[in-house]
């Protein structure tokens, strides 16, 4: 158990409250959506001091978003009284890098330029680790995942297996790390993330008529909804499963998501609603004035904001109409 003392967060929380005013609120996101073209939408980001000031060309917006993410993680790492908390969130970026590097190795190509610099290990460091197969610095879950990936690929030659194994390990690591901290808020966060990931995967896989064998392997453990519940639902149609969920706190959200899916055959509506459910949990941190909660909430706020900005910029560049962009936006923190 890693102790988390509320009062240690006094400085961090003060700084974060002052930073929160600069988050892009509904008004500013609206200005981006209603802007005439991508270039004008991009100006809002320049005003908000996004990235490292390289905001002249909207075609480089992905780079600006990556810089903004890096800035956020650097800030949090600097002010965090318990460095492990930030590391727990950074590791998912390491898993992403590991995935990209392993896939490149299996296909015999150079790794593409999409490695991210927000992991616990730097880009060059993780490249070296994978190239030299020197895993001593990695966590046990990472090592196991890499070994499993080599094993699965040598048997099946299927690059999709890499995605499945590494993504699952990434969640296992995250949940494992969060449960290490002495904080009910982080434990509940872990449970909610497991549940919404499982529900989303389950409904997606069911609508693709996947077997239980496939689904059972992907289910994450440690959520409020047990594996038996999913298994019991497997014999019934998906409607019945959605109906069974009504006794849980996810009931309404999943029901609305399922209605969207049956009406429009579009599963991303459910995904958005589940993300919004998570954000409404995070939003409760607004009422907490001291402790790890506002600290983590800022990270989620920033991640969601960057995601929304990406949705808007891609929409603008591809000339989507305003309502379609608005429909896809995630619930923000402010």
């Amino acid at each position, binding site marked *: 158990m890693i102790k988390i003392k509320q009062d240690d967060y006094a*400085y961090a929380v*003060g700084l974060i409250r002052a930073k*929160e005013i600069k988050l892009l609120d509904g008004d500013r996101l609206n200005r981006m959506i209603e802007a005439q073209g991508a270039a004008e939408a991009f100006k809002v980001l320049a005003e908000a001091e996004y990235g490292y000031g390289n905001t002249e060309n909207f075609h480089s917006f992905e780079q600006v978003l990556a810089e903004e993410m890096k800035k956020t993680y650097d800030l949090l790492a600097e*002010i965090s009284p318990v460095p492990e908390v930030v590391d727990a969130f950074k590791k998912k970026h390491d898993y992403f890098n590991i995935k990209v590097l392993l896939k490149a190795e299996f296909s015999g190509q150079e790794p593409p330029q999409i490695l991210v610099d927000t992991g616990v290990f730097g880009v060059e460091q993780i490249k070296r680790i994978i190239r030299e197969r020197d895993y001593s610095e990695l966590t046990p879950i990472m090592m196991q995942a890499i070994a499993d990936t080599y094993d699965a690929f040598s048997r099946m030659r299927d690059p999709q297996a890499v995605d499945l194994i590494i993504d699952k390990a990434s969640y296992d690591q995250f949940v494992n790390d969060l449960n290490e901290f002495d904080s009910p808020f982080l434990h509940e966060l872990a449970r909610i993330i497991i549940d919404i990931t499982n529900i989303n995967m389950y409904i997606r896989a069911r609508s693709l008529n996947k077997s239980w064998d496939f689904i059972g392997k992907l289910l994450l453990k440690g959520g409020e909804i047990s594996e038996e519940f999913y298994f019991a639902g497997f014999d019934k149609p998906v409607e019945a499963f959605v109906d069974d969920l009504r006794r849980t706190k996810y009931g309404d959200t999943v029901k609305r998501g399922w209605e969207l899916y049956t009406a429009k055959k579009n599963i991303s509506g459910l995904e958005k609603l589940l993300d919004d459910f998570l954000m409404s949990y995070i939003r409760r941190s607004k009422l907490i004035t001291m402790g790890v909660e506002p600290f983590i909430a800022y990270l989620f706020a920033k991640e969601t904001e960057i995601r929304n900005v990406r949705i808007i910029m891609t929409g603008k560049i591809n000339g989507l109409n305003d309502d379609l962009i608005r429909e896809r936006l995630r619930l923000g923190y402010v």
Partner: protein
Amino acid sequence: MLEQIFTGQFFAYFGAAIAFLVAGLGSSKGVGLAGQTGAGVLSEDPSKFGSVMLLEALPSTQAIYGFVIAFLIIGKINDAMVLQEGLKLFAAGLPMGVVGLVSAIYQGKVSASGIQLISKHPESVGSAITLALMVEMFAILALIVSILMIG
């Protein structure tokens, strides 16, 4: 032997020590907490120094009250003091010391929250101060009780 150590004077000094020491600890903790949050806000927006400082200083009053009580008790001490008189002054130091400790820590928390409030809504500095002053009332009551007990 023991009668020579535990005299009326000893207990009276002990009461004075508790009044200042314990209340002072509370103020240190309260001001410290509010100060850290204040530094966090100022690192992002240095223009708020005025209101941040005002809020940060509020939990320091408990130490001042503790000082007043300690001063009054010490003023009552004389060489011919009997044990009962000393114990009475010892008891008089307790309300200010204990209530001072607790109220200063909680006032520090309210001040830290108030500093977060003004970082977003600078116009709410009045409300932030009022909220923190609510806690002050208990320290003031403790001060009055201690003064009445000293007599």
